């Protein structure tokens, strides 16, 4: 039976290379956690760059971070935290077989991801217009120690940019999950894709939880 034929029927779709449903769920979660470990290490390289440059230029980081808007950063933090809540509520709905709860919560999560990106767009365009850009493109003379301030904005754009790409990928994953939920592929016995996708979305949230104080709230 193909996946297409298997969908829409209640029960757990057990692949032939697994013995028990629990084994299949564990295997998928183990794979996801290993993937999340590599994600942490990808961002880890950027956190090292941040740590070293912050250590070398503490005054520069203190001065340059004032060009970021704390209110927008805090707003985006709340938006992402709320989107994490809606993801777990979607899984909760799937556990109880409430299709509308799954669909609405996934929809709210996608709306939150979109809101996050719109706010980021306004932040980025403000920086483009003020010349607060990485490296060679840095042209803002009002920043204290302008010959080195480009370092902070290089790190800012790399970290938030990589995070932003993850948000876009998250929106695609969440839309796919919504499509599958719409086709009745999930039920209280089987909702692994929602859990796996949820784990990815929570990691995106956790990365931002660290980026927000490190970039916007420096003393």
């Amino acid at each position, binding site marked *: 039976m193909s996946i297409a034929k298997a969908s829409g029927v209640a029960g757990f779709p057990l692949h032939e*290379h697994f013995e028990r449903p629990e084994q299949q769920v564990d295997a998928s979660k*183990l794979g996801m956690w290993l993937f999340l470990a590599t994600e942490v290490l990808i961002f*880890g390289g950027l956190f090292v760059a941040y740590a070293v440059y912050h250590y070398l230029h503490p005054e520069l980081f203190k001065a340059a971070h004032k060009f970021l808007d704390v209110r927008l950063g805090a707003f985006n933090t709340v938006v992402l935290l709320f989107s994490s809540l809606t993801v777990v509520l979607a899984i909760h709905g799937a556990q109880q077989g409430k299709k509308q709860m799954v669909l609405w919560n996934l929809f709210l999560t996608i709306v939150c991801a979109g809101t996050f990106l719109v706010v980021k767009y306004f932040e980025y365009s403000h920086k483009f217009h003020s010349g607060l850009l990485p490296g060679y493109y840095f042209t803002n003379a009002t920043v204290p120690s302008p010959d080195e301030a480009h370092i902070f904005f290089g790190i800012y754009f790399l970290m938030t940019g990589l995070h932003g790409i993850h948000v876009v990928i998250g929106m695609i994953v969440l839309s796919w999950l919504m499509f599958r939920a719409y086709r009745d592929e999930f039920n209280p016995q089987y909702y692994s894709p929602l859990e796996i996708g949820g784990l990815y979305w929570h990691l995106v949230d956790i990365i931002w939880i660290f980026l927000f104080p490190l970039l916007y709230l420096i003393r």
Partner: protein
Amino acid sequence: MSHIHKVEGPAPHVLPVGVYWTVFGALLCLTALTVWVAEFDFGTMSTTVALLVATTKASLVLACFMHLWFDNKFYGVILGATFVFLSLFILFCVMDEGSRTLIDPERANFLPRDQKVLQYKTDHPDELALRPGLKDPVKDELNFEGPHSQEE
């Protein structure tokens, strides 16, 4: 394509919805706390305080939203190992940067902390012209400031 059979699946591990809303409320409070705390200057402790709050928030998301607390503990081992190696990565890089001014360029050995000398050596002859903030290390042999504290 692999074959799929519909079987009886495991019963879901359901938490009360109130738990999720409580954790969300705690996360909002901690966000407000970290913004509020940033108003005060704790000196070098400020980053530590901010990271402590962020780690608490991340732990809440991991334990409750990501179900780590209730799941197979091996997932936690994977995550823990990741953070151990990430800390080593950050620690060694910062230690390296922090100890460079302790090395005597003449004899290439360590100096006591109070005898720090400027040991910045440039590979490019034009670099001093490109970076006027940087003093000539040969002329200022006994500059007691590190190369990075000369900006102001």
